[in-house]
């Protein structure tokens, strides 16, 4: 399998107006917005790519695609983004009600390159809001189920209340996905796992030698997860992580998102672990 390589920049420098078609509250501070274009749609986004979402008058923030559009019909070319209210911009985006107009630039960055995992077992490991960018990976794999082997989804969250897509987790498990969920801080009544998400990897059923792994979450979580996957025998060249820095222009012009030789808005966010590992432990980066 070839390494994930940078895609040509296709995104726009000018925000396109998109209207909030639906807003679903996922957790206390996280919502999923479906955005419909007002005028002309942006080029199609691939899983792993991100958009710069503008809350007019406040600013813009990079938000990954968190869902695949339904084929055909009125929802084609709509964008799905899950975002957590953390700063001024994301709080404004979080508050956007159906009908509100947001600006969208994109698509930016590299994709998860899901089709290249055909013929392999697929292991997806997500921590916290990191489940959002890998959700389209799972949707794409399930849409082409016969092309893949075992499908494993391991999810870590701070508390049970912070778990994203709880209904879908049940549906995915019912569809044959090995779903493992663990939390750092259990609440009363929680009967699932307690602990860090890499601890779920040894018991997951997959063939490491024929596995492609997709990992997304806080960088430290990704490092420990990658270590556990490598220990199981997954080659670093088939292990992909999603890296984040200060994305600004989205086109590799401004250099704010530089990580060593990479401009992550263009050469990332999805990077092969073989390439990412040496960069993730350099303090100055």
């Amino acid at each position, binding site marked *: 399998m070839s390494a994930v390589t940078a895609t040509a920049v296709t995104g726009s420098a000018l925000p396109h107006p998109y209207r909030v078609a639906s807003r679903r509250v996922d957790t206390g501070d996280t919502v999923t917005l479906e955005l419909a274009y007002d005028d002309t749609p942006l080029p199609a986004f691939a899983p792993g790519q991100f958009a710069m979402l503008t809350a007019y008058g406040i600013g813009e923030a990079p938000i990954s695609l968190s869902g695949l559009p339904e084929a055909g019909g009125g929802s084609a070319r709509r964008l799905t983004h899950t975002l*957590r209210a*953390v700063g001024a911009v994301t709080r404004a985006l979080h508050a956007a009600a159906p009908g509100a107009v947001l600006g969208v630039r994109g698509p930016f960055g590299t994709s998860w390159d899901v089709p290249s995992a055909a013929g392999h077992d697929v292991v997806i490991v997500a921590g916290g809001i990191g489940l959002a960018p890998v959700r389209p990976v799972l949707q794409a794999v399930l849409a082409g189920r016969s092309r893949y082997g075992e499908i494993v989804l391991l999810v870590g969250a701070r508390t049970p209340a912070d778990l994203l897509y709880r209904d879908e987790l049940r549906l995915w498990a019912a569809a044959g996905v090995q779903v493992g969920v663990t939390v*750092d801080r*259990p609440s009363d009544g929680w009967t699932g*796992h*307690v*602990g*860090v998400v890499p601890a779920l990897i040894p*018991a997951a059923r997959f063939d490491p030698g024929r596995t492609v792994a997709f990992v997304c979450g*806080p960088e430290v979580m990704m490092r420990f997860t990658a270590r556990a996957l490598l220990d199981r025998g997954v080659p670093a060249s088939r292990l992909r992580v999603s890296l984040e820095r200060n994305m600004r222009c989205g086109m590799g012009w401004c250099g704010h998102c530089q990580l060593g030789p990479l401009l992550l808005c263009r050469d990332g966010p999805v990077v092969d672990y073989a390439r990412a590992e040496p960069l993730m432990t350099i303090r100055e980066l």
Partner: protein
Amino acid sequence: MTDDLVSRVARLPFFAELTPAHLGELCAVARPGSYPAGERVFAEGDVADRFWLIEAGSAALDLRVPGRGDQVIETLTAGSVLGWSWLHAPYRWQFGAVARERLDTIEFDGVSVRERCEADQAFGYAMLRLFLPVVTERLHATRLRLLDLYATPAEAAS
């Protein structure tokens, strides 16, 4: 010790590095066991004289907190070792453990293993090489959770 038990123990990746002789010594003090969901495997403060390899199911490590009941610290799944307090003085469980769901285990007599470690340094070193990574791994996991990685800056500061 039965051939069936030896083959079950040999199948566990945890023991993959052991020589057949050391594996045989370990199996001589092992027996299969099971716990229904909800049954306490051991309680905090009791004598720690055994350890378990989880073949199937999961167990929760817990700690009694006054006013809050038994608080789950961590869960352990198939392939994990349950218990290492048998290895070091004062040989008392520092936490409790409960079967989260039906738990199938291989149970080892910790006192006998300890005695063999004392009598045979090569065996003792082999045990150390088995258990030290377990302790290290759990320490790493605990440190990761201390970082509260999924918290927002506001949550992390509170």
